[in-house]
């Protein structure tokens, strides 16, 4: 048999039916849902008199609109309350397991999936959220879908899909201190552009990727969609197996050993071919900061805000001009001269325990700059929150002048009341710096947790490599 990629192996194992001239019917192993994109799918299902085929493979959580403050208080936002009630009702009626806002396992859907071991290697995983690509870090095929497709999966546990092209992205060399997997993925998006991966599934490889923790790998897969590719994935290895062992939904004992043997066979075969290959020297990378209104508008922290005239493509030039007006930035401004109003450490990209540890290490014994109006630390899940509190990280954040919040999507999308006010500028560990993403008129700069933490202390971006980051990760 011809050598196969990880993607092809998972794909082939999930084909239910192939009819010439039609997309393939693919079986879905895990369906994750949240309050934001599911109500219309359940309503459609009900209207058509259809049932949820596999409630046992479907998991629901409240994350997008939940308050990160006191959840014992009534939900004042009537629309958000309506969504929560709808999700609760829909799950009750169909037998889908729900982690509601009071569950100790509540958290951002892409944080709790791997954390509970719902997400496992070799699976197909979908969710009505583009950052579903996160779960690919365990060696799964995971991608975001629309509400019509949610309804389709609820009814059939299958999706009609055309096979994607494949891209191999290799990061080799020793990652410098202060440079994180967030900087890996931002560098890649800056290189290929935000549509560079359209039509592709990416596989990340190379010794610099192998050396990353599983949580750090999730950050890369998470932002894969920002480069246009619907899914990103990594071959499962010892790091993956160690991470998964003992998680609530992961097999135990002999069954776990059998699973590991199966998972080991998922890695791409030697000689497997890809539609394109990108090689990046990780040892040469610097911390990244976005300057514009999409994640591809990014540069090294040591660099300057680019001059739109430096873009040869007239379309890029126009986009850069528009972005600089929106961001209120002048060409040539050193990145480290950009002042920030607020700092957000959170989101499905960077709110896991290692992210919080890294940020806490940077701010320990220091205080948020007077010019910074708000610094938020929002754990990705309640499990992360409890762990952080066990380690005393909450105290470090609070002593430094950060607010320590409950778990949810928070200021990444601003569907609750954690909103970046118009005209204000953030250093944010989230994934999108689109116009108005964190709030109408808000200006977002995407960075790693260490970079965001340092910006909170200094009130402007700094090159974290100049700080003592030994022990930050």
């Amino acid at each position, binding site marked *: 048999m011809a050598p196969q990629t990880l993607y092809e192996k998972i794909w082939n*194992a999930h084909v*239910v*039916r192939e009819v010439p001239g039609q*997309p393939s*019917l693919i*079986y879905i192993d895990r369906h994750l849902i949240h309050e*934001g*994109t599911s109500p*219309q799918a359940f*309503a*459609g299902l009900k209207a058509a008199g259809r049932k949820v*085929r*596999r409630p*046992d*493979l479907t*998991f629901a959580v409240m994350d*997008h*609109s939940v308050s990160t403050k006191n*959840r*014992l*208080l*009534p939900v004042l*936002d009537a*629309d*958000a309350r309506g969504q929560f009630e*709808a999700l609760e009702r829909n799950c009750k009626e169909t037998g889908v397991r729900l982690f*509601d806002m*009071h*569950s*100790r*396992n509540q958290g951002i859907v892409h944080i709790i999936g791997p954390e509970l071991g*719902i997400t496992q290697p070799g699976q197909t995983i979908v969710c*009505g959220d*583009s950052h579903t690509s996160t779960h690919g870090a365990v060696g799964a095929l995971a991608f975001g*879908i*629309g509400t*019509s497709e949610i309804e389709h999966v609820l*009814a*059939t*546990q*299958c999706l009609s899909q055309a096979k994607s092209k494949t891209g191999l992205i290799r990061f080799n060399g020793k990652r410098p201190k202060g440079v994180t997997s967030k900087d890996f993925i931002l560098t890649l998006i800056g290189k290929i552009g*935000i*549509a560079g991966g*359209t*039509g592709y599934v990416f596989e990340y490889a190379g010794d610099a990727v192998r050396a990353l923790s599983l949580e750090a790998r999730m950050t890369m897969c998470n932002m894969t969609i920002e480069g*246009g590719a619907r899914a990103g994935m990594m071959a499962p290895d010892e790091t993956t197996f160690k991470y998964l062992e003992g998680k*609530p939904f992961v097999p135990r004992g002999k069954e776990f050993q059998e699973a590991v043997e199966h998972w080991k066979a998922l890695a791409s075969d030697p000689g497997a071919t890809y539609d394109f290959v990108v090689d990046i020297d990780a040892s040469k990378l610097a911390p990244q900061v976005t300057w514009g209104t*999409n994640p591809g508008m990014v540069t090294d922290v040591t660099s300057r805000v680019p001059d739109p005239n430096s873009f040869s493509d007239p*379309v890029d030039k*126009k*986009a850069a001009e*528009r972005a600089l007006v929106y961001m209120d930035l002048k060409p040539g401004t050193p990145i480290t001269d950009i002042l920030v109003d607020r700092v957000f450490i959170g989101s499905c990209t960077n709110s896991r325990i290692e992210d919080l540890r890294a940020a806490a290490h940077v701010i320990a014994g220091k205080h948020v700059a007077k010019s910074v109006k708000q610094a938020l630390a929002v754990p990705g899940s*309640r499990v992360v929150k409890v762990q952080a509190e066990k380690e005393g990280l909450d105290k470090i954040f609070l002593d430094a002048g950060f607010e320590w919040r409950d778990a949810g999507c928070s200021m990444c999308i*601003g*569907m609750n009341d954690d909103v970046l006010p118009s005209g204000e500028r953030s250093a944010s560990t989230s994934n*999108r710096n*689109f*116009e*108005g993403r964190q709030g*109408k008129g808000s200006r977002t700069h995407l960075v790693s947790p260490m970079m965001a933490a340092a910006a909170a202390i200094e009130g402007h971006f700094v090159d974290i490599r100049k700080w003592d980051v030994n022990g930050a990760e």
Partner: protein
Amino acid sequence: MQAFVKHTGLVAPMDRVNVDTDQMVPKQFLKLQTREGFGRTLFYDWRYLPGEALNPEFPLNFPRYRGASVLLARANFGCGSSREHAPWAILDYGFRAIIAPSYADIFYNNCFKNGILPVTLSDAQVDDLFKRAEKQEGYRLTVDLQDQVVSDESGLRIPFEIDPFRRDCLLKGLDDIGLTLEHEPHISAYEKSNPKSAPMYEAVDVKIAAPQT
């Protein structure tokens, strides 16, 4: 789903590259539970000034583009969030077809689920259509899915490519869940030979705070 066979309508240009779905329907409208009524929210932050007064500088608000039903757009249209609220808003506003050089994957897929035809043409062809739409007030295009041609009243005819299966589903307005359910025996057979389950090996989901009633 509404079928799409052939549509003729006024063209509105959206001359921006990488228009993301956050712009099409901002976050505050993602809490509604219907598929209808999103037309009002389309391009909300661009379209309205404070107090929902129409922004006179935004092209869709120009009197000459009122009632447009063919949206002319730039590359990577619909990038970002998977929210299907974006195509719902486009449809509810009155657009039946989009013409652009490229689309983001999830948005492209979502269009077909809602009876919207996203036509892909080359950069040069789209450029030319932008020029025509801006030059000639009342510029209309006919988008014919049956014959796979975009045409105007001056005799311009541009053929386009589209996946034959997607074309067929849209022409007939097929319910794709119904289509998949026709494969029920195959789904059951797959489940039998590949038993999937998500057993839980330790207690989870204890409430840490009682909800207030």
